[in-house]
C-alpha cells in the first residue's frame, strides 16, 4: 500500500470530510515535532547553565514550556477531531456489508462459501483490527515519517557543523561519519531482516490460530448450546468434549512460542539499536571535545538520532501492520463491491385493482451452477387467477425451489417465467415482489417491535395491524403484552418477549396479510403447530386468503384436499396434476403418499 493509497483510504473512509485532511497534516506535524522542539531548547538551556547564564536559562525554560504546551494542545485537538470522524467508519463498513447481504443475489448469498467468507471477515476483524485501527495506524505512520524527515535534517546539520566548524578535524570526522553510516546501514539491514522473519512467523501463527480458533469456537458452541445439555449429560460425553476442548486450549502454546521467537529477535534488534545509540553519543561527544558542538547539543543530536531510529522501527512495524490489515480490509471492500442482483429489470408493475396478475412457467429448468443435477426440469405451469393450488412432494422434490424461482430468488437455468406475458426478469425487483405475500416454512421474525415486524417498516398503519392480528387470532395475546402492538420481540435487541413456534407462525401469517398482496404463497405454514392449532389454521384458511391466487406447499397430504388443483412434484418434474379425488383415483404417487399417512388413522375409521 503506497502512501498515496493510504491517504486515499483515509479520505474515502471519512467520506471526504475536508477538514480531516488539515487535521491529519497539522496533527502529525505537531506529533512529530514535540520531541525535537523539546531537545533543541533543552540543549540551549544546558549550554546556558554550563556558562552559568541563569537568566538566559530561565528565559529558555519558559519558551520551552510554553511552546511544548501549545504544540501539545494542538496535537491533542487534532487527535480528538480525528477520532470523532474515524470512529463511525467501523460501523459504516459493517452496515454496508450487511446491506450487501440483503441486496446481493440470493443464490450467491445462500452459498456456503459466501457465508464462510463473511464469517471470516468478522473473525479477521477481531484478530487483525478494523477500519478504525487501520486508519489510526495510517495516521501514526504519517507521524513517524515526518519524524524521520526531521531527524534527517538534524543529521545533515550535525555533519555540516562537524565538517564546517572552526576546530574541524577532517580525517577524524570522515572516519567517524563513515562508521556511523555503516552502523546505520547494518542496523537497518538487520531490522529489515528481522521484521521480515517476524512477518513470516506471524502469518504461520495466524494460520495455526485461525484453524484452532475455528474448531474452538465450534466446540464452544456445542458445549454452550442449551438443547445439547441434556444429550451431553445423558450420553455421558463430558470427558469426550472436555478433552477436545483441552486439546484446543493448547493453541495457547503456539502463542507462547511465537512470543519467545519475537522476544529473541526483537532483543537482538534492541541490543543493536542501543549500541548504535552508544556510538552516536561517542560520535557527538568526540565532536564536542574538539569544540565543534556544545555539550547541550550533544544531548540534542543524540536524542534526535535515537528518535529517528525508534521512528524508523515504529514506521516499519506500522507499515507491516497496515499492509497486513489492508489485505483483510480489501476483502471487506471486495465483499461490499460485489454486484447486486443482476437478475433485475426496470419495468414497473402495473397496479391493477382486479388483481389480474397471471404467472406462468415455460419449460423452466433449474440446476445449481457447476452441478449436473437438475433440481427442476422442464416445468410448464400456469397459475390461474384466484385459484388455490397445492404443491406436494417428498422432501427434496423441488417444491421450494419452484417457489424460489417464482420469487426470483433463483434464476432459471433454462426457460422463462412470465407475468402477464412478460418475462419476470424485465420487472424491477422491488416492484415485482410487491405482488407476493409469502410465509416461508423457515420464516424469520426480527427482534424489533411486533407492529414493525408486521408492517416491515417503522411507518405502521396501526388499524391495519390490529385488524390482521385479530384475523390470525392473536388479539388476546397482544393485549396482554406490556406495550401492546409496540412490544419488542425476542431478546437479542433488548428485553423483548418470546413467542412460541405457533404464535410466531401466526405473526408471520399476519405479516403476509398486512401486505395484502394479490398472490399468496404458504410454505408449510402449519409445520410447527400441534394438531388443534393446525386444524384451526386450516379452518381459517379460506377467510385468511380470500379470493387470492394461492400456492400452498405441504408434505401433509391432508391439507391439500381443499385446494382447487394439486400438483405433485417428484424428481424435479410435475408427475401428477388434478384434484384430490382424481389423483386418488389415478392411484399414483399422490395416492401412495396419502394412503401412507391415512393408514395411521385408518384403523379407527370404522
Amino acid at each position, binding site marked *: 500500500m503506497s502512501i498515496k493509497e493510504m491517504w486515499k483510504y483515509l479520505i474515502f473512509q471519512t467520506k471526504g470530510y475536508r477538514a480531516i485532511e488539515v487535521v491529519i497534516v497539522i496533527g502529525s506535524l505537531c506529533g512529530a515535532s514535540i520531541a525535537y522542539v523539546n531537545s533543541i531548547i533543552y540543549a540551549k538551556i544546558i549550554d546556558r547553565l554550563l556558562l552559568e547564564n541563569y537568566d538566559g536559562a530561565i528565559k529558555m525554560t519558559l519558551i520551552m*514550556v*510554553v511552546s*511544548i504546551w501549545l504544540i501539545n494542545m494542538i496535537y*491533542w485537538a487534532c487527535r480528538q477531531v480525528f477520532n470523532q470522524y474515524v470512529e463511525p467508519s467501523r460501523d459504516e463498513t459493517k452496515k454496508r456489508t*450487511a446491506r450487501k447481504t440483503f441486496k446481493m443475489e440470493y443464490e450467491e448469498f445462500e452459498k456456503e462459501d459466501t457465508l464462510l467468507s463473511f464469517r471470516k471477515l468478522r473473525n479477521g476483524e477481531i484478530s487483525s483490527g478494523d477500519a478504525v485501527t487501520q486508519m489510526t495506524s495510517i495516521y501514526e505512520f504519517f507521524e513517524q515519517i515526518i519524524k524521520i524527515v526531521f531527524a534527517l535534517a538534524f543529521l545533515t546539520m550535525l555533519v555540516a557543523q562537524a565538517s564546517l566548524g572552526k576546530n574541524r578535524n577532517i580525517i577524524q570526522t570522515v572516519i567517524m561519519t563513515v562508521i556511523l553510516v555503516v552502523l546505520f546501514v547494518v542496523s537497518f539491514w538487520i531490522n529489515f531482516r528481522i521484521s521480515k522473519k517476524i512477518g513470516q512467523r506471524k502469518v504461520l501463527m495466524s494460520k495455526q490460530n485461525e484453524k484452532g480458533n475455528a474448531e474452538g469456537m465450534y466446540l464452544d458452541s456445542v458445549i454452550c448450546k442449551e438443547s445439547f445439555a441434556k444429550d451431553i449429560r445423558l450420553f455421558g460425553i463430558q470427558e469426550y468434549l472436555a478433552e477436545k476442548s483441552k486439546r484446543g486450549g493448547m493453541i495457547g502454546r503456539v502463542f507462547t512460542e511465537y512470543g519467545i521467537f519475537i522476544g529473541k529477535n526483537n532483543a537482538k534488534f534492541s541490543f543493536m539499536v542501543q549500541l548504535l545509540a552508544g556510538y552516536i*553519543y561517542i560520535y557527538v561527544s568526540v565532536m564536542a571535545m574538539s569544540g565543534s558542538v556544545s555539550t547541550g547539543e550533544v544531548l540534542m543530536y543524540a536524542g534526535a538520532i535515537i528518535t529517528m531510529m525508534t521512528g524508523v522501527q515504529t514506521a516499519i512495524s506500522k507499515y507491516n501492520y497496515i499492509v497486513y490489515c489492508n489485505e483483510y480490509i480489501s476483502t471487506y471492500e471486495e465483499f461490499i463491491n460485489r454486484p447486486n442482483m443482476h437478475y433485475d429489470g426496470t419495468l414497473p408493475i402495473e397496479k391493477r385493482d382486479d388483481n389480474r396478475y397471471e404467472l406462468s412457467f415455460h419449460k423452466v429448468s433449474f440446476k445449481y451452477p457447476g452441478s449436473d443435477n437438475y433440481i427442476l426440469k422442464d416445468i410448464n405451469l400456469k397459475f390461474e387467477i384466484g385459484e388455490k393450488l397445492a404443491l406436494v412432494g417428498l422432501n427434496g422434490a423441488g417444491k421450494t425451489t419452484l417457489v424460489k424461482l417464482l420469487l426470483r430468488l433463483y434464476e432459471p437455468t433454462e426457460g422463462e417465467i412470465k407475468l402477464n406475458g412478460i418475462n419476470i426478469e424485465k420487472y424491477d425487483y422491488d416492484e415485482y415482489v410487491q405482488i407476493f405475500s409469502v410465509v416461508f416454512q423457515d420464516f424469520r421474525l426480527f427482534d424489533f417491535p411486533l407492529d414493525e415486524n408486521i408492517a416491515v417498516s417503522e411507518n405502521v398503519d396501526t388499524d391495519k395491524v390490529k385488524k390482521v392480528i385479530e384475523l390470525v387470532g392473536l388479539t388476546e395475546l397482544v393485549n396482554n403484552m406490556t406495550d401492546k402492538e409496540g412490544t419488542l420481540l425476542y431478546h437479542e435487541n433488548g428485553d423483548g418477549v418470546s413467542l412460541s413456534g405457533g404464535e410466531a407462525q401466526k405473526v408471520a401469517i399476519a405479516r403476509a396479510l398486512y401486505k395484502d398482496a394479490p398472490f399468496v404463497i404458504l410454505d408449510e405454514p402449519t409445520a410447527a403447530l*400441534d394438531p388443534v392449532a393446525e386444524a384451526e389454521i386450516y379452518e381459517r384458511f379460506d377467510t385468511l386468503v380470500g379470493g387470492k391466487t394461492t400456492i400452498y406447499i405441504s408434505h401433509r397430504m391432508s391439507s391439500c*384436499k381443499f385446494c382447487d388443483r394439486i400438483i405433485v412434484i417428484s424428481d424435479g418434474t410435475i408427475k401428477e396434476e388434478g384434484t384430490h379425488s382424481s389423483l386418488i383415483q389415478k392411484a399414483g404417487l399422490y395416492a401412495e403418499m396419502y394412503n401412507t399417512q391415512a393408514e395411521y388413522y385408518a384403523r379407527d375409521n370404522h
Partner: protein
Amino acid sequence: MKKYSVLSNFRFAYGPVWREKRIFIWDTLLEIFFSVAVPLFGTGLSALVVWLLGNEISVLSLIVTILLAFVCYAAANALQTYIVEKHRVHNIEIRLELFSHEIIKKELAIPLEASESSQARLLNEKASMAVSSNWEGIEGYFRYSKALGVGIFGLVVYAALAGTIHPLIVVILVMLSVISVMVDNIPQWYYNRIKDKIAKDNMTKEYIESVAQDVPAGKDIRVFGMSDWIIGKYDRAIMSTRRLTARQNVLAYVGVATTVTLNAIRDVCCYLYLIYLLQKGLSVSEFVFYLGVIAGFSNWFNEVSRNGVMMKKCDSQICDIRSYLDYCVQDNSGKLVPKIGFNSIEVVFDHVTFQYQGTDEPVLKDVSFKLKAGEHKALVGLNGAGKSTLVKLISGLYLPTSGDIYVNGINTRELNLNEYYSHQSAVFQDYFITSYTVGENIALSELWDEDRVWNSVKQAGLYEVIKDLPKGLMTHLGKDLVPDGVSLSGGQIQKLLLARALYRNPSLILLDEPTAALDVLAESEIYEIYSKVLREKTSLFISHRLASTRFCDEIILLDEGKIVEQGTHEELMSIQGKYSELFKVQSRYYENGGESDVN
C-alpha cells in the same frame, strides 16, 4: 453472592500458576524490575555523558566509558525486550490452560436442571466473559497486576530519588498527578453515564449483523423488501452513538488539555527550583538526571492509578469465575446402584410433581405410572402438556419437585445417575449432532470399536449411505470443521441417531418426537426400523401425532401436566374421551378422503 477477599482472589489467580507454570511468575518479577531499572539507567546515561564532557578526560577514556555503559544498557534493554514480548503472549497460554478449561469442565458438570436456571446461565455468562478476553477477567488480572507492580516499584524508586532533591518536590508531584488523574477520569465518568445507551446501539448493530448472516432470513428480507427498514435501524444506531461520543471526545480533550497544562506548570516549577539549586552548587549532570526522574515520576503515578482501577474491575471478575465454580457442586459419593443392575430397567412414578424454578405453576401434577421392563409405551399430548419434562424426569436429568421416581426400586434422588445414564439412549427432536466424524457421532468417543459401529449402522439401515461416503466412518458431518464434510438428509440423521442409540446397547430408549421434521415416507420408514430394533428394550415414545404411536403397547395421554387417560389404542378409543377426540381432529382430513375414494 459469596464475597471473596482480595487476597484470596490473588491466591486463586496465582496459585495454579505457581504450581504448574512457575516460570511465568519469575518472568513477572523480572519484568517489573527491568521496567523500572531500564528507563532509570537511560536517564543516568545522559547525565553521565554531560558529566564526562564536563571533566577534562582523554578522548580514549571517554570512548571506553561510554561504550562500556552502553553495552550494559543495551544488554539490559535486550533482556527487557525479550521478557516483555514473551510474557505478553504467555498470558494467553496461562488463561486457556489453567482457567478457561476449568469453566468448560464446570459447565459440563452442572446437573441439567441447575444448568437451565437463569442464575446458572447468568453465572456462566459472566464467568465465560472473564476467561475469554485478553484484557479483562483472569488474563486482565495478570496483565494489570504486573503493570501495577511496575507502577508501584517505579513510584517508590522515583519518589525516593526525587525526595533527595527536596521532600516538597515529591509532595507537589503527587498533588499534580492526583489532579491530572482526576481530570483524566472525566471522560470515563461520562462514558459510564452513556455506556448503557451505547451498549443498546451496539446491541442493535450486532443483532443486524447476525441477521445479515442468516440465510433463511434473506428470503423474507428480499421478498418483503425489508432492507430499508433494517438498515434504517442501523443508521439510527450509528447516529445515536456518534452524538454520544462527540461529547465524550470534547470531555476527553478537556482532560488531556488539563494534564498538558499541569505538566507545563510542573516543568516550570521544577526547572526553576533546580536552576536555583545549580546556583547553590548542584552539578549540571545531576540537573539532567533529576529532570529525568521528575519527568518519569508522573508516568509511574499514572500507571498505579490506571492499573489499580483496572485491577479492581478484574478482581470482581475473578469473583465471577469463583462464584460459578462454586455453584452447585455435586457430590456423587454414596449414590446407589440397584442390586439387579441396569440390564433391564423399570421406572415407577409415584405422585410426581415437577415445577421449573421461577415459574408459578407445576408442569407436571401428581403423575403416577409404571414403565415396565421391556414395555413400549407412548406418551401423547398437545404442545406444552409436559411431555418433554416427563422424559427428562424418567431419564434422571431432572429430579421431581415432590413425589418419587424409582428406577429398579431405587429412588432417583439416591441413584447413581451417571451409571443409570450409561444404560439409556435418547433421541430428542432437537437432535444432537456434532461436525466431527460419523464414527465419533455414533460412538460419541474418539476411540470407537469399528465393528460395533458398523453393526449399529447396519441395524439402523444406514449401511449403504455410510459405505458410499468418501471417507466412510471418518467422514465429517457438515462443513464447520473441514471443507469436505457432508450433510445428511433428515431421514439419514434420524437413522444415525438410532445407530448411536444402538451402539450404546441400552436397556432404556427414550424417543422425543424424533420424526416431526420428516416427510411421510421417511417417517414411516423410520417407524418400521424402530419397531424392529426396539423389540426387547424398554422404550418410551413421545409424539403429538397420535397416529405415530401404533407400535407401542400402551398409550399415556398427558394434558396440562396430568395423566388423563391411559391404556391401549383400542381401549382409549372406546371410552370416547379426550384421546379419541384428538384422534378425530387429526384424522379428519383422512376420514372422507383416501380410503373411501379408493375403495
